[in-house]
């Protein structure tokens, strides 16, 4: 039986489509509720995050236990957000019905990688007023980057699905869904090991920054869910999880009971009493195993029949890569076998090179050389007993800033000096985003503060660069960190950086080290 609720691509709707007008009306009604009401706009956003150092909301004597649950830098990122958006959708649907709207209402998704205009903010979210020209549009907020609200395109490398869909495992460093974290913790970092998944890195974190910037709602987990576009963004991330599973039979969810049995009490102990009078019960929590498939929650996506997630990682290209013969990498790297193993979540990583001094980013591109240590690569080659998966990881370590400057930096390997748009896409490894740094530096409760570390699996990228003949000197990797910039609507390419737009001298980003690891 088909699922009754179908989430559709927002860019297939006009700005005045009933789905969007019903959403706007529901948002307005939920915003009008007191924040102490669990179905109010502010309360639901607080479940994701609320700055514990901010003044208490009016009418509250303490923060609800239900707040500050969001999961990032963790393998719980995807299931937690799936469930969070699911409850939100139930509450909004009840509000839509109470407002006289369609009973089959489902949350649309924003597929920024759908080609054409899709990389710009959907029209219904851009205008300050509704169609009558006088009623404020609840889907609009000034607390976004101004140029996003006026229709500038998200940077192509910030919405690229290439790195995420290059991954063949869910769990592990740099893998699709994130590394193992022992318990649900917001912005996890343990023993200096990076935990965020490739999809979380891009496009999740990047779109948060591109829309929210340094001071907008989307730029911080404490305020992100207050922006009505947040939910369409996360519906898309949720959709991409399914797309990745569809991509290949090899792509599977974790089978570890620690992940499958993890419960998320997003509904709290009291549940939600919706606008239609229906009660969503609380007290018992769904687990990851309960929500592996969207049909378990009664919804689907309008493009479930297609396997292609977007324009940057068409199924054909990814499939072709998987079948392509491995390319040998330039000396001194170990020889690549005919069929490299899939990366194991617990693979032993060997440091093969690192920068030797910190990097400071204030809006200008920076290029550093990571020398590959030949003594290590020689011992890797000589070690006949070792069982390598022949995967390479680029780690950006000790990422820190006083607060999120809202500026994404693309990470590129061996980028030419004057890169064309095609070069940028061809050499792109991932992105640096400071989304959530405030939560990492001042975690709620008594957790220890920390900075951020990301791990990018660059195996496929190196294969491509070696095959193209653009990586011939194996003794080093050039890593360029380049601020991404908003482009012109419909443009799939990055425009020339405007220093005034990307500069953030008052909030410098520091990076401790860039390192390369072989597993």
């Amino acid at each position, binding site marked *: 039986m088909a699922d009754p609720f179908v989430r559709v691509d927002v860019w297939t709707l006009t700005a005045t489509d009933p789905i969007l007008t019903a959403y706007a009306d529901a948002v307005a009604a939920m915003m009008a509720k007191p924040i102490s009401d669990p179905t109010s706009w502010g309360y639901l956003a607080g479940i994701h995050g609320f700055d514990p150092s901010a003044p208490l909301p009016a009418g509250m004597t303490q923060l609800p236990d239900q707040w500050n649950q969001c999961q990032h830098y963790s393998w719980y990122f995807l299931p937690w957000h799936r469930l969070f958006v699911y409850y939100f959708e139930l509450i909004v649907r009840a509000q839509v019905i109470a407002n006289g709207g369609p009973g089959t209402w489902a949350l649309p998704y924003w597929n920024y990688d759908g080609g054409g205009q899709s990389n710009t903010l959907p029209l219904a979210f851009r205008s300050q007023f509704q169609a009558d020209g006088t009623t404020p549009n609840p889907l609009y907020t000034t607390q976004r980057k101004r140029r996003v609200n006026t229709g500038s395109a998200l940077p192509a490398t910030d919405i690229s699905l290439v790195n995420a869909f290059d991954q063949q495992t869910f769990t592990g460093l740099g893998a699709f869904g994130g590394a193992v974290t022992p318990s649900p913790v917001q912005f996890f970092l343990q023993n200096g090991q990076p935990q965020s998944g490739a999809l979380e890195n891009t496009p999740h974190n990047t779109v948060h920054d591109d829309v929210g910037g340094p001071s907008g709602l989307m730029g911080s987990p404490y305020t992100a869910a207050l922006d009505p576009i947040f939910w369409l963004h996360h519906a898309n991330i949720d959709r991409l999880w399914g797309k990745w599973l569809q991509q290949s039979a090899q792509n599977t969810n974790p089978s570890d009971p620690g992940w499958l049995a993890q419960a998320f009490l997003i509904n709290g102990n009291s549940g939600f009493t919706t606008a239609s009078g229906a009660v969503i019960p609380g007290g018992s929590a769904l687990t990851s195993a309960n929500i592996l498939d969207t049909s378990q929650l009664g919804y689907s996506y309008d493009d479930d029949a297609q396997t292609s997630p977007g324009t940057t990682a068409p199924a054909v290209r990814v499939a072709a890569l998987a079948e392509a013969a491995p390319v040998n990498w330039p000396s001194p790297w170990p020889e690549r076998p005919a069929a490299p193993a899939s990366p194991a979540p617990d693979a032993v*990583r060997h*440091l093969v090179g690192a920068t030797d001094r910190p990097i400071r980013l204030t809006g200008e591109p920076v290029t550093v050389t990571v020398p590959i240590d030949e003594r290590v690569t020689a*011992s890797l080659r000589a070690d006949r*007993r070792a069982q390598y998966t022949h995967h390479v990881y680029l780690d950006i370590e000790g990422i820190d800033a006083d607060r999120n400057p809202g500026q994404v930096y693309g990470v590129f390997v061996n980028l030419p000096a004057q890169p064309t748009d095609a070069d940028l896409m061809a050499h792109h490894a991932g992105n640096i985003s400071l989304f959530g740094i405030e939560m990492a530096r001042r975690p709620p*409760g008594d957790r*220890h503060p920390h900075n951020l570390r990301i791990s990018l699996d660059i195996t496929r990228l190196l294969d491509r660069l070696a095959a193209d003949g653009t990586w011939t000197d194996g003794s080093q990797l050039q890593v360029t960190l380049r601020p991404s910039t908003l482009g012109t609507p419909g443009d799939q390419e990055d425009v020339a950086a405007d220093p005034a737009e990307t500069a953030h001298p008052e909030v410098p980003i520091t990076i*401790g080290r860039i390192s390369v690891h072989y597993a």
Partner: protein
Amino acid sequence: MATALPRSRRSGGRRVLLRHPELGAAAVIAAAWVTLLVQAWTSSRAGGAAGMDMGPAAAGGAWSRAAGGVPGWMLMTVAMMGPATLGAIGYTGLNSLRWRRRRAMAEFAAAYLAVWLAFGLVVLAAAAVVPGVPGPAALALVLAVAAAWQLTPVKRRCLSGCHRGAALPPRGWRAERGALGFGLRNGLYCLGTCWCLMLVMVAAPGGQLLWTAGLTVAITTELVLPTPRGATRAVAALLGFAALAALATGNLLQ
């Protein structure tokens, strides 16, 4: 013979070592514990007091007496601080090039222990001149200070500092400086976290082995727990109780 081992078992052991380069340091810590146990056993067989081994009861000034107590002090430092520091040692190894992992971990450990050595010299010299140390009154005072220190924001910040990683340069003098600097910083944070717990070892007139074991459990638990507040408060309460008991009994655990 190693070559007779099945391949999987052999490579399994190697993988553990590659993943946990701190196992060598763990062996050193285990050896420190064995030494402490043997010392305690020998001491009890000889019917001697089970006080901290302050070395030969040398005549002379406070500093020379302090120097005599250094081996015992460092032994206890390794035994008590070691388990909590293994994570940072492993971090240093894993984030260093394979051929200089041991060197980096040794540099970390040397700088870390230098902090405790310097502190130990001061403490041992003070203990040599302050009357009533070791003794029940001194023990009660130190336990009370330790209990209070547990609850200060400085202690909390230092405990968080013990969790901070470092960007270690891979080669050359920067690598040496990086590992030494990381060890020094970690040692200072650790000192800020545990300094008064180590004073207990000097002030306690007896039961050293029990104190060592109990405090090691407390220090390690606090450090490894991701949310340490409960453990910090529980340890503070236990220390406070022990302070009262020391006062009441006059000589706890002797």
